[in-house]
């Protein structure tokens, strides 16, 4: 499945990547599948997006097609559709 992935306030990923938004093709259908494959193919994504148990880290918020954040219970299992735009976002503290 091919989706658009955007990383907001995640410079640890976007700096080596050189961009905030990528087209990404992955095997599977869920957010968890996407995150796992990002973790294996995008530099630093594993450290930032995935917790030690392999699930999407709770520090990361997820938005699909600009809608409200994905609720906790759907963070791993949410089924994506071809062409979806997925945003991973981190809270920023710098003042």
């Amino acid at each position, binding site marked *: 499945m091919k989706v658009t992935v955007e990383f*907001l306030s995640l410079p*640890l990923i976007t700096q080596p990547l050189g961009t905030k938004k990528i087209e990404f093709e992955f095997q599977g259908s869920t957010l968890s599948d996407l995150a796992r494959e990002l973790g294996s193919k995008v530099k630093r994504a594993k450290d930032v997006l995935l917790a030690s148990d392999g699930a999407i880290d709770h520090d990361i918020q997820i938005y699909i097609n600009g809608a409200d954040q994905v609720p906790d219970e759907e963070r791993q299992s949410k089924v994506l559709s071809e062409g979806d735009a997925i945003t991973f976002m*981190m*809270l*920023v*503290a710098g*003042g």
Partner: protein
Amino acid sequence: MEDKSPRQLLEEARAEVEEISVDEAYRLSLDDAPPIFLDIREPEQVAAGYIKNAVFIRGDEVEMHARHLLPDKEAPVVLYCGEGVRSLFTALALKEMGYKNVRALTGGFKAWVEAGHEIESNSLLTREQLNHYSRQIILREVGIEGQKRLLAAKVLLVGAGGLGSSASLYLAASGVGTLGIADYDTVSASNLNRQIIHAYDNVGERKVASALETLRRANPEANLIGIDKRITPDNVLDILNGFDIVLDGSDNFATKYLLHDACFVAGKPYVYGGATRFEGQASLFYPAAGGPCLRCIWPTPPTDGLVPT
């Protein structure tokens, strides 16, 4: 060509411009969709009283700002000045700019008062204030009522750093009446590229003292309160006390969550601000008004180190 006398010019303007009586204008002012009342008098005249909901712009500046003030050239506008003469010329100028529905109030504000129609009789703003804030008072979203609310507002800004520098200067300059600045740091030269409230002279000084000095110059009438303390769970509620809203320009999650939680408890609106590199985040959290809190979205502070500050 012979120069025209003022009387001739007035006659010509009167022939071109439609006038409206104060009684008719008053009746229209009560409509669900009233015309825009444009007050073109001097600030000291406005300070003494004005027609309710009027928009203010000095007569000689109307043409310059017309496109912003009156974006709809079809919208009904009633122009008024002191006695109904200058408004004729300004109305004529607007008509020549393509405004289709501009009328001048016969007899001006004086006639309105003499007819006994309702006015806002005390703007509570001085001539100097009306002048200082004139560019935002002319914004219909602000107006005199909005300016009065700003002057009455008590804002606590935490962090006199990158975010706090810009925010505090704008808040003070725009007339926020009471502005608290909290920080617990000293100015270093490496701050100066972005923390524009401080300057080279201030390197080594406490940030709060440096910020207050700059803010006093930006707006001498603002009531500025310096809080040169580290904010802790023990003092946070005391520090918040007396302020209406908190702007958080602090630079760490621990302070941000502490301030957020204290605002949650105190029922005050909390404005989050965070920046890193070329990205920034800002959000208002005000659960007392029905919205979500920060912890509804990020239940616990993110792990330090994942996000550079």
